[in-house]
C-alpha cells in the first residue's frame, strides 16, 4: 500500500474511533483534522513513516482506552468489590 493511502486509511480509522470519544465526535474530528492538516506539507518519506507509526499507536491507545472505560463502568455498576 502506498504511503498516501495508508495515511488516508489511518484518518478514516481515527474518524471512526472518534465516534465513541467521550467529549463528542465533533470535538474529536476537529482535533484530528488539525493534527493531520498541520503536517500536510511534509514530503520526507521517513518523517511520514514516523508519523504513521505514531498514528498507529494512537489507534491502539484509543481502543484500549474505550475498552478500559467500558470495563470500569460495568464493574462499578454491577460489582461491589
Amino acid at each position, binding site marked *: 500500500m502506498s504511503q498516501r493511502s495508508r495515511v488516508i486509511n489511518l484518518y*478514516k*480509522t481515527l474518524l*471512526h*474511533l472518534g465516534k465513541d470519544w*467521550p467529549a463528542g465526535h465533533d470535538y474529536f474530528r476537529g482535533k484530528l483534522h488539525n493534527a493531520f492538516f498541520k503536517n500536510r506539507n511534509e514530503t520526507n518519506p521517513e518523517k511520514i513513516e514516523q508519523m504513521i507509526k505514531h498514528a498507529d499507536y494512537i489507534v491502539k491507545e484509543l*481502543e484500549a482506552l*474505550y*475498552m478500559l*472505560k*467500558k*470495563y470500569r*463502568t*460495568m*464493574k462499578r*455498576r*454491577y*460489582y461491589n468489590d
Partner: protein
Amino acid sequence: MARVLVGVKRVIDYAVKIRVKPDKTGVVTDGVKHSMNPFDEIAVEEAVRLKEKKLASEIIAITCGPAQSQEALRTALAMGVDKGIHVEVSGPEYETLQPIHVSKILAKIAQNEKIDLIILGKQAIDDDSNQTAQMTSGFLDWSLATFASKIEKGEKDVTVTRDIDGGHEVVTLKLPAIVSADLRLNEPRYATLPNIMKAKKKPIQKLSPKDLGVDTTPRIKIISVEDPPTRQAGQIVPDVDTLIAKLKEKGHC
C-alpha cells in the same frame, strides 16, 4: 468442532444517561446512541476466540428486535461471527418482549441449526433480567453454566470456571451446553472499520417469531416507568456540636 450460537442485544449505550419519557410509558430511545450489550460483546469475543483456536467450526449470532437491531448483528459479524440471524419483533410486541420469548426463539434456532454450544451475555444492561440463558437451558434440557469467567472446550465437553460469591466454581458440562458470560471472561476486541466493511458482505437471515412457532403477543402491560428517587440534598452544619446533635437526633451515635 462445535457449532456455536451467540445471542446479541441492541441496547442504549452504556455511556448514555437514561431519561424517562414524560408520559412514563418507557425511556427515551429516539436519537439516543445504541450499541451492543457489553456482556454480549464478551460472549461474542469468547466464541470468536474458540474459532481462532480451531475449536469451533461456525459461529452464528442471533438477535431479536426491530430493524435497527441489525446494527448489533453487524458489530458481531465485524468481530468475527460467520452468520447472523435477525428475528424481527417490532412495535408494542418488542416493548413487552420477555426473556421467556427470547429463550423459546433461541431454543428453536439452536435445534434448527444443530448448535453444540450457546454463549450468551449474563444479562442485558437495559432490563437487567439475567434469565435468558437459564430459561433456554430449561427449554432445551441442556446443561448450563452461568457467570463464566473462563471457558475451556474439550472434545465432547466444556469446562467452565464460574464466578460465585467468595470464589470460583469449576464445572464440566457435557455438550450440548449453554454458558452465560460474566464481565471477567475476556476483553472484547474493537470492531475496526475495515472489518465492519467486510461484515457487510456476510449473510444475515431474517425470520419472524411466527416462522419459529413462537407466540410473542404481549401478555403484560407496562403501567408506569419512573426515575429512581433522587439523592436528598446534604446540609452544612456550623460546628461539631450541631453535627453531634443532628447525628443523635437521627440515631447515628
